[in-house]
């Protein structure tokens, strides 16, 4: 598998250099991506992080109206506490810092250790766990955090930008997570730069249902089907856990290797499904937002909006990955 890289060991570093070269409003220091302008006094700081390979998540969501810093780990590997501690200290504008943590054992443990170490800063952590492919039970590590991370970071970021206090930003972030669900389907595996070989084998005839964003296999395989059928499968899984009602924010997310044309085909089916339930797609995103390197496939994430969340979603944002209003 060919990769546009110089060295598998340097790919995260090289990509971060490219990111900040393309976006002068960002800066990178010791594996942390910051807003170049630094923290705004009195504003709650937002820090997130996770394995690399999911671009634009998370570093591509640093900027006005969203994150203050992102801590990218190695490819598909949680960041280490050192990064998180440094980021937390650097973005604290005196109003405390929100950690947005995707629910993976590695992310959770590293953020926990960091929070203990950064004892001078007031920190609240919000766990994102929207993936209905995983049962949230005693017998799992709980639901994974996937697409809803984008919603949480955008909406909490907007609220922080407005000057809301940490407790309020954390409350709304948790609420967005609670109102959001995701489900993903892969047509192919991804290939990490380090291994150079597909993480799993998936025959031409099959898809992987409920795949993770790190190339983790899903709960089951199913025969390849039409966009309509696959969209219905994903939406049924979401609807089974979060009845579709009222105004929805809907993301059809590409996993990195799927043409945008196909994502729009899927979105048309998702939108029809939503209408069929009597709900409304009030806001939407179609594109690559939480990727898994070169994996082909899609995930759909739905959030039940209310007026406040809609207002915060619409608020200006200026990051490499999401931008409107400025």
């Amino acid at each position: 598998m060919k990769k546009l890289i110089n060295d598998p060991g340097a790919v995260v570093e090289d990509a971060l250099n490219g990111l900040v070269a393309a976006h002068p409003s960002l800066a990178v220091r010791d594996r942390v991506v910051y807003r170049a302008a630094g923290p705004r006094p009195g504003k709650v700081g937002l820090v997130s992080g996770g394995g690399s390979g999911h671009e634009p998540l998370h570093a591509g969501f640093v900027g006005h109206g969203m994150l203050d810093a992102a801590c990218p780990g190695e490819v598909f590997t949680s960041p280490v506490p050192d990064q998180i501690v440094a980021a937390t200290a650097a973005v604290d504008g005196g109003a405390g810092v929100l950690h947005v943590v995707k629910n993976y054992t590695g992310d959770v443990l590293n953020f926990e250790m960091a929070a203990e170490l950064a004892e001078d800063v007031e920190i609240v952590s919000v766990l994102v766990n929207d993936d209905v492919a995983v049962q949230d039970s005693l017998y799992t590590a709980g639901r994974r955090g996937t697409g809803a991370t984008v919603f949480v970071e955008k909406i909490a970021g907007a609220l922080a930008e407005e000057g809301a206090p940490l407790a309020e930003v954390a409350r709304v972030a948790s609420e967005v997570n609670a109102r959001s669900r995701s489900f993903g389907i892969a047509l192919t595996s991804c290939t990490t730069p380090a291994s150079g070989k597909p993480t799993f084998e998936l025959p031409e005839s099959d898809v992987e249902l409920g795949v993770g964003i790190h190339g983790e296999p899903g709960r089951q395989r199913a025969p390849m089907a039409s966009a309509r059928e696959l969209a219905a499968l994903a939406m049924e899984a979401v609807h089974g856990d979060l009845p579709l009602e009222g105004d929805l924010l809907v993301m059809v997310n590409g996993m990195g290797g799927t043409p945008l044309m196909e994502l729009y085909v899927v979105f048309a089916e998702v939108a029809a499904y939503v209408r069929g339930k009597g709900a409304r797609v009030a806001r939407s995103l179609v594109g690559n937002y939480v990727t898994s390197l070169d994996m082909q496939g899609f995930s759909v994430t739905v959030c039940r909006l209310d007026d406040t969340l809609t207002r915060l979603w619409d608020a200006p944002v200026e990051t490499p990955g999401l931008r409107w209003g400025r």
Partner: protein
Amino acid sequence: THVDTDTALAWVRAIAESVAAHADQLTRLDAAIGDADHGINMRRGFTAVVAALDAARWSTVGEVLTKTGTTLVSTVGGASGPLYGSAFRAAGKALASPEVSPEELLAGLTAGLEAVQRLGTAEPGDKTIVDAYRPALDAFEAALRDGADLAGAARAAADGAEAGMRDTTPMVARKGRASYLGPRSQGHQDPGATSTALIFRALAEVADR
């Protein structure tokens, strides 16, 4: 036969070599039920550990193990970084002298396991590091009780860890990334239990010298 600072250094260096030699295997195991990075993570971490240990002089077993743990925390990431990092740090904290007896070593390693379980809340049977770590300590303890020396106890621990590692294959994962697969995690050996077995095998080899 006690464990001195040099033995501790030799042990950690032996782990580093073994992890590097088995990195592909660990990653392959992780590809089956995880995200295909465990070998890469462990190699990156222990490479950094060796560099850190080489860069200074160490006067107690505990210092060596604590530095190992701290470096793992700072370089591994993922689930295994905090877990192994905390284990080595907890063991290091318990072993603050230039030379420790096999019994003291056992106590230190037990503190390590407690740290892993406190942090990760895994119980035996959850298909994790714990499933190799726990039988290793049980075997170590039993061997000492039966009069074994350090080398014998470490050999028993390595055998116990490997048996525990093999026993993870039929388990359904209940912690970590593999738990997402539910029943599909059955039939695959746990990568973390496998690296734990490497760690105890390295101890046995160093104790045998």
